[in-house]
């Protein structure tokens, strides 16, 4: 007995609503049932193979013992195995020897970018381009020397150069005269340079002294670069750098990275990296 509302003669549950709405017990489509069975079988299989069910203190481990952290560690090991070719050579070599080796220094330049970003870029900029008050590392002007050994030394021990404040020894006119001479690139043109003892650190001609971290005053690079360079120079003369006596003194401290902060190999890498930024000597 076929009728239009039940073309395939499905069995009736006997439930009827509103006189004519019947509930038939039609089977779901075959493909749907197939998908359903495949799905729960996959769930069971997943639970057997992989860690899945939480227990009170632990969880099911799965037959393969797979964990994501283990996979991560394996991948890390694979990458370290690739790097080992170079990394294994680094501890036994000095920074200068690494720099001299074309292949090794190339490896360091490519790989130490992260190290530089983590430790140096905050002050010196991502490419060593410096920041206001923080020296540029990509140029060829070095307060404490630009050789690979000196750079390494700066990273290990940090630097803390000092220039006394001269505000109490100079009249405003004198300070202006000195600032003008320094800004012109010829500090020894004024007798004040000798009289006030500037030459003791900056040298007779004002070309600086890397032993003390005293900058070259005759070149085009300014330790405290500013839009109004002359004003900046005058400020430095009056208040000095790192002078504990003057509360307005310019702060200039490179922290110490040796000892507990970075290991020897990382410091060597950074020294080579900085040397290769463009101005190493």
């Amino acid at each position, binding site marked *: 007995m076929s009728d239009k509302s039940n073309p395939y003669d499905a069995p009736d549950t006997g439930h009827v609503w509103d006189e004519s709405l019947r509930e038939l017990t039609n089977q779901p489509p075959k493909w749907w049932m197939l998908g359903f069975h495949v799905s729960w079988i996959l769930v069971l299989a997943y639970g057997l193979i992989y860690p899945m069910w939480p227990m009170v203190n632990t969880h099911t481990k799965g037959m393969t013992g797979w964990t994501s952290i283990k996979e991560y560690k394996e991948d890390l090991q694979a990458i370290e195995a690739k790097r080992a070719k170079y990394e294994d050579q680094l501890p036994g070599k000095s920074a200068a020897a690494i720099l001299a080796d074309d292949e090794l220094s190339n490896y360091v330049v490519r790989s130490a970018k992260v190290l530089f970003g983590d430790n140096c870029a905050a002050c010196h900029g991502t490419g060593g381009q410096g920041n206001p008050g923080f020296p540029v590392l*990509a140029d060829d002007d070095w307060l404490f020397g630009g050789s690979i050994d000196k750079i390494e030394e700066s990273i290990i021990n940090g630097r803390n150069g000092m220039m006394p404040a001269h505000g109490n020894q100079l009249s405003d006119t004198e300070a202006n005269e000195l600032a003008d001479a320094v800004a012109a690139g010829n500090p020894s043109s004024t007798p004040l340079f000798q009289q006030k003892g500037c030459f003791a650190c900056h040298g007779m001609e004002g070309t600086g002294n890397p032993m003390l971290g005293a900058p070259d005053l005759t*070149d085009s*690079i300014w330790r405290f670069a500013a839009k109004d360079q002359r004003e900046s120079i005058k400020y430095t003369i009056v208040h000095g750098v790192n002078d504990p006596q003057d509360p307005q003194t310019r702060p200039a401290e490179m922290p110490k990275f040796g000892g507990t902060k970075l290991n020897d190999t990382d410091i060597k890498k950074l020294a080579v990296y900085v040397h290769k930024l463009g101005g190493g000597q």
Partner: protein
Amino acid sequence: MSDTADSQQKHADELYAEEGVWHVNVDAGTVFAKRIPGKYRTIKWFTMSTWLIFFLGPYLRWGDRQAVLLDIPARQFHIFDITILPQDVWLLSLTLLFFAILLAVVTSIAGRVFCGYFCFQTVWTDIFTLIEEKIEGNPSKRRKLKDAPLDAHKLRLRATKYFFWLIISMLTGISFAAWFTDAYELWQSYLTLSASSVAWIVLGLFTAGTFILAGFMREQVCFWLCPYARIQGVMYDRETILPTYDFNRGEPRGKLKKGETEAGNGDCIDCHQCVAVCPTGIDIRDGQQEGCITCSLCLDACDAVMDKIGKPHGLIRYASLDEIEGHPTKPFWKRARPLVYLSIMVIAAAGILYGLTHLGSMELKVIHERSPLFVQLSDGSIQNRFDIKILNKQDKQIRVWLTAEGPEGLELIGADEPLDVDSGKLRSHIVYIKVPRQNLLQSRTPLTFVVSNVNDPKDVVRYEGAFFSPRRQ
């Protein structure tokens, strides 16, 4: 006369005797196509034999390596003398364009020539059914065997058939893999069971794929799976020549009586031979349809019947709809569509030819340091840092000089010695360029890097870049 008529009727009666059988082929069941010789069958053998290149190609040697080797892990394609690196992969897109348009132009002119004569699905199916016929006999025997209960006889025939199918399937898989790795080493690794997992997976997939697609799915692939079947179908127009049943001449169809067609009837004697030979099991007399792969085996069948009943060939023939309906026809070189396709093909081919002849022996890329763009040095000059990348496309190591041309007083630092670049490798090298401030008139000054082969002064590549400096105040 009556003699001829008698013999013609006899031929026709033989065909009518098996006629009922062929109705099955237009149904949903398995198609058992009859194989008969003929002109198009011969052509099909020739076109099918182009697949021998697929099987034999990998064993060709060129120097000390495989002549055609698609080396994916090393990212190099070797084609005889030519090595193509990823940098030249635009050639591949032109090649794909060329073949896509080739498909379009051929289809526009003469229908699904690819399907009927070249496609691996139809070619492999043809070979598989040939093996089936050799082992299990002609279509009626095979049909009986299919319905027969599984006994020792059927089991033996089936096992033999599957064995040969499997061999061809495996050879297909191995041949495919052999294009991507050294063919001889591949065989060795398969035979010693030491092949890589990738090689086994490729072999497994291709064996299973060939076995199932060509052995069991056959025309179902063309009907239900293949996108090209549909794409090509929409490329037909009224001027495309296709295997067509000439209904003007054939209809009304009627059985041959006493060696003669009945008065008022057309030339079709309703012998169902065209259905019998069709590998996709369609009736071409219903008109052009999606299932027709235009293999033209029905043309062979019909022409053979026409010979027997003394009528001219061509009741089923390659003809355009315009021709059948009596409209004027044009040759393909006067039709717009093939001409447009052909011109695209010519452009693509010219591009490929240009690419292949101008692959170059080196490639140079220069990456300008972004942070900082420039640095002022203590003497007032400006320095830029560049990452130079030199790609050696030759099959031997080269030694090159790096120089730069640009603003006056330019000094290149870090290129005092020539650089060695290994074959097929990219060498990256950092250099600095220093220019006196007064020689920089704008914030961007053109700069050209030149890389020249030490041993071959003509082997030079250049890269146009820029030198950056602060704005002049």
